[in-house]
């Protein structure tokens, strides 16, 4: 479904991705793990067009999207919940979700809103509340829900557990698994990899802009090096 081959992405002169190649098959949950600066978020930003790659190719369902601007990538069926949530703080929950469907003109937006409220009942309770007044966990739900409102076939999640109470992390990952069961392919990035690998099919370990390791999620969880470096075992 998604294939990155030999992707190089730069911030100015700094090469953040030094030739990343990954694939995501339809129906999968794939996790990118790695420490700070490994290039996880940059990989997602390269896919979503926020920082387009300088070299290499990114193809989505057969279309080359390396040079495609972000709004067209969203229209193709990839949406992102960005790092640090980035909810529109002074908009209500409802307005945030409506912006998620900014590009859509079809009649199914109402159904998707229903779906998001079913996945995250908390958001329905807080429909009229300003996003900025909600807790970190609720804002994370909102960021994921907002990305879902674009009705993506591939959902990119950047550190959905960042800054959230442990109990909520578990809930959010249950919901991520549920979203996947409903038919959305998911590529997610995590620093704190335990929960992420538990719900994922496959995983990649990134180190300083390279793919260091790739395997089935269960195999990665059992890998002693990965355990030591990323799972806190």
């Amino acid at each position, binding site marked *: 479904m998604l294939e990155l081959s030999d992707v190089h992405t730069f911030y100015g002169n700094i090469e953040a991705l030094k030739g990343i190649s990954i694939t995501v098959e339809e129906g999968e949950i794939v996790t990118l793990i790695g420490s700070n600066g490994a290039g996880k978020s940059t990989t997602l930003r390269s896919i*979503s*067009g*926020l920082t387009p790659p300088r070299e290499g190719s990114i193809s989505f369902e057969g279309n080359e999207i390396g040079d495609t*601007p*972000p*709004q067209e990538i*969203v*229209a193709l069926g990839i*949406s*992102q*919940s*960005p790092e*640090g949530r*980035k*909810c*529109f*703080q*002074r*908009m209500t929950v409802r*307005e945030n979700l*409506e*912006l*998620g469907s*900014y*590009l859509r003109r079809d009649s199914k937006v109402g159904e998707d809103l229903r779906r998001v409220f079913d996945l995250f009942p908390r958001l329905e309770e807080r429909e009229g509340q*300003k996003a*900025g*007044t909600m807790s970190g966990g609720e804002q994370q739900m909102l960021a994921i829900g*907002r*990305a879902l409102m*674009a009705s993506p076939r591939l959902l990119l999640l950047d550190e959905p557990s960042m800054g959230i109470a442990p109990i909520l992390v578990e809930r959010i990952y249950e919901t991520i698994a549920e979203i996947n069961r409903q038919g959305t392919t998911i590529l997610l990035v995590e620093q704190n990899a335990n929960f992420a690998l538990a719900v994922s099919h496959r995983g990649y370990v990134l180190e300083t802009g390279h793919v260091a390791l790739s395997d089935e999620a269960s195999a990665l969880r059992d890998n002693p090096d990965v355990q030591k470096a990323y799972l806190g075992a």
Partner: protein
Amino acid sequence: MLPAAVALTALVIFPVFRDPLDSFLGDSILALAFVVMALGLNIVVGFAGLLDLGYVAFYAFGALATGWWASDFFTGVNGERGIHIGASEFASSLPGVHLNFLLILVGAVIITAIAGAIIGLPTLRLRGDYIAIVTLAFGEIIGRIAQNGDELTLIGDYKFSNGRQSISPIDQINLPLIGEFDQATNLRPYFWMGLALVLVVLFVNFRLRDSRMGRAWIALREDEVAAASMGVPLVKTKLMAYAVGAGFGGISGAFLGAFLNSVNANQFQFGFSIFILAMVILGGLGSIWGVVIGAVLLSFVNTRFLTQLDQGIGNDVLNALGLDFTFNEVKFGVFGFILVLVMVLRPEGLLPERRRKLELTEGVGTGGESVYEARA
């Protein structure tokens, strides 16, 4: 609805109770023009969060449109017989281009919207203060070009402007069905015309704010990365904000050109941009009614209050302090002082926008740093 209707009726019949050449009526007309101007800047700065310090450029283009197309500026055109479309009987006898004011408005909007998009282009990759610097430079460039426009010939022998010499006289506004205004005998029609422009621009402002585009502007202001992730096309959305905001500046500039009966480069100073920006900030960034109030207040401070202060006790106070100037001479200092007062006492503006009030009173911001980074 009822209070609005009463207020509107009061405004409409207000000129009838004033002398046709009343100076207060004249100052009110200026205030109306500034309301249009401030509402335009509010779209760029208030809605989309792009700090624009070069707004005077659009005043310049609007006013120049009137200068070009409603005077004998292009004397030689059409073998000195002139071009006349919908001009009054008197203007039709003059050389130069003489178009109906409504056509000039359309032309001014087109010119300024294009200029707005052009000023927007180099700022697309910039954020915050850097946008302000580029727009500031753009305003200055246009001002300089207008100043030296008497040496600048574009097509044939036609100049760009008259520089510091005025393009004057300008045709009186001549509306279909209503007829020609006459500034020398009656200011009332100018008041009604200004009021009509304000109403149209207000309507467009409210519609825009509640439109998809308006929501995209606000999303952009709140968080550019998130907006892009949601599929908001950044380039188009920003350029639209610049173009629409500039278009309103053009409308107001064209109207001011006709009302002041003169277009010259001395009008296009940097201070003008700040004057309009001060109205927006005083009223409340992003708040439509707030900006209206801010524009009216500052406009009257400029035209009446300072003069009255100088004629009244102000002079005595300054003399007693041994200061040898009048308030009018330091009016930009006074505006600055007013802004400082607003920032200290009521940082959200007189009539704050709902969203912004939240940020300032309840500590809700976009993750701390980016609120101010994005805007100021």
